[in-house]
């Protein structure tokens, strides 16, 4: 038997340390830039993948525990070719997602993919929730002034009663009667004028939909959801599929969305109500088919004898929604901003000048009208916007 000459102590040490060094450097090279990986992931992958949840594609957090890096590189660059080469894993995942193919990313380099994978492996950094501190003191002050006005009212009533019951002074009685008559006129007319005027009407809706979050913070255009305003009489209550265009992805609100009034849990609960109405299972990401209508309470409602058309005002007139509906983008809960009375309509028709440029079809009639009224710009009222039959027929 041949005896193998052992390495010397020094050499052995050198070899071991070199091996370690190699291992270590290898580990270093596989360790990509987490930050670069995050921005790459957000730009390319996040449309279909989340870290902790299934979306269009599978959850990808800690993916290197489940897949080899080389496999991932091949899959990401051209998953079609990988499937064609007969890779069992690739075909299995394709089948699992019912044959919806992933977009190929040939533009990503090996280093890019390493960066993305190291972002996926890094622990997701939780943002420290910044609790919103808002002062809720203002509400209390209002009630105190209300008490004062009740007290004053009570004293006045007391004096009047005393005058009629106990006093023999005729002059005082006449003054008190006149005072009562004035009050009757004031309160009576206020009561009569408020009949049928729902300014400030703010019913409780089945889902606490916040226009502040959607139209204000996220700057979604009014017509994205109220899409029939451009073509039809009614501005349209969005059907639930429009909600689900975004809320398939957004199943909970961000920490920053919560306010002193409503917590994050409250808003998340409201999104769950939407899922129930849409019949959306947020675990399996599938529609169950069990839908139910959301019974919104209508706020803006003209009496049946008045005709109003949204398309005419929004598309033709180019009027901003806020002109009539007020600062909706600031409203947590929607209320009726305008009185919607006839006088209010007519006032606007009298003031609004018609945009006549670039409207060749009506060029002649516009010129005739401005000559007739001796003005540069004709108002809506001058064009017939004050005629009874325009809105009542």
């Amino acid at each position, binding site marked *: 038997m041949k005896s193998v000459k052992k390495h010397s102590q020094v050499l052995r040490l050198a070899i071991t340390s070199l091996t370690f060094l190699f291992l270590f450097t290898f580990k270093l090279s596989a360790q990509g830039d987490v930050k670069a990986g995050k921005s790459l992931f957000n730009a390319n992958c996040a449309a279909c993948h989340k870290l902790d949840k299934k979306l269009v594609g599978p959850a990808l957090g800690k993916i290197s525990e489940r897949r080899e890096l080389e496999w991932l590189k091949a899959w990401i660059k051209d998953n079609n070719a990988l499937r064609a080469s007969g890779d069992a894993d690739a075909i299995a995942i394709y089948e699992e997602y019912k044959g919806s193919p992933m977009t190929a990313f040939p533009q990503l380099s090996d280093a890019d993919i390493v960066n993305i994978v190291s972002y996926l492996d890094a622990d997701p950094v939780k943002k420290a929730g910044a609790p919103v501190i808002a002062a809720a003191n203002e509400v209390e002050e209002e009630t105190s002034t209300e008490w004062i006005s009740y007290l004053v009212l009570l004293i006045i009533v007391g004096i009047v009663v005393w005058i009629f019951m106990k006093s023999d002074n005729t002059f005082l009685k006449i003054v008190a009667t006149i005072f009562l008559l004035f009050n*009757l006129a004031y309160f009576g007319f206020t009561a009569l004028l408020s009949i049928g005027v729902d300014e400030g009407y703010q019913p409780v809706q089945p889902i606490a939909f916040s226009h502040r979050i959607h139209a204000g913070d996220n700057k979604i255009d009014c017509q994205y959801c109220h899409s029939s305003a451009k073509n039809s009489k009614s501005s349209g209550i969005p059907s639930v599929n429009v909600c689900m265009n975004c809320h398939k992805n957004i199943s909970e609100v961000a920490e920053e969305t919560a306010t002193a009034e409503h917590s994050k849990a409250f808003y998340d609960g409201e999104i769950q109500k939407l899922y129930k109405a849409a019949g959306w299972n947020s675990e399996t990401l599938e529609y169950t088919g069990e839908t139910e209508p959301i019974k919104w309470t209508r706020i803006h409602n003209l009496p049946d004898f008045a005709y109003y058309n949204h398309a005419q005002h929004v598309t033709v007139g180019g009027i901003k929604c806020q002109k009539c509906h007020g600062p909706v983008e600031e409203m947590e809960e929607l209320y009726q901003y305008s009185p919607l009375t006839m006088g209010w309509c007519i006032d606007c028709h009298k003031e609004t000048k018609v945009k006549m440029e670039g409207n060749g079809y009506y060029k002649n009639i516009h010129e005739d009208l401005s000559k007739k009224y001796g003005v540069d710009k004709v108002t809506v009222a001058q064009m017939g916007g004050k005629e009874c039959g325009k809105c009542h027929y």
Partner: protein
Amino acid sequence: MKNNIFKIVALLVVSVVLTSCSDKTKRQVQFMPDMYVSVAYEPYGENTAFANGMDSQSPVEGTIARGQVPYDYPNTNEGYEAAKKELKSPLSVHEVNSARGKSLYGIYCVVCHGKKGDGQGDLVKREKFLGIPNYKDRDITEGSIYHVIMHGRNLMGSHASQLTGEERWQIVKHVQTLRNDLLK
């Protein structure tokens, strides 16, 4: 005299009560409600005549709304590829309205895809939606853009219910313009 005073006071009390009880969640009293409330069915109302209890009904299957062209490419990968290859815009040069395309794009697409089509809309910047592609990174044709607006793709949902066929084509034209600008 005393009788009159009582009448005045009674009226006063009634009107004060009427003005003071203003519950914001309730509508005001209506004068002649039979002239205010529609006898005809209003949009989104309840209706016992239909099985699902709603006024608004989906179009009868197999019918086509006036002015609309049916869309036959199915919501599948094959449908997407076919539309990408074959589907062409029916709008003639004169019917393309770039201002309208731009304003519609501004309403329906900008929040995610961004003004320039670079995938940097407000929702992306606020990290509500991520991974919106830049148009220049995607191999898209007018047919595939129309198909995606119609049926949606991946996380983007269908926008067919919010837009008419003609409006969709105007948007397609605008997306192509943006893409060409980005490719420059």
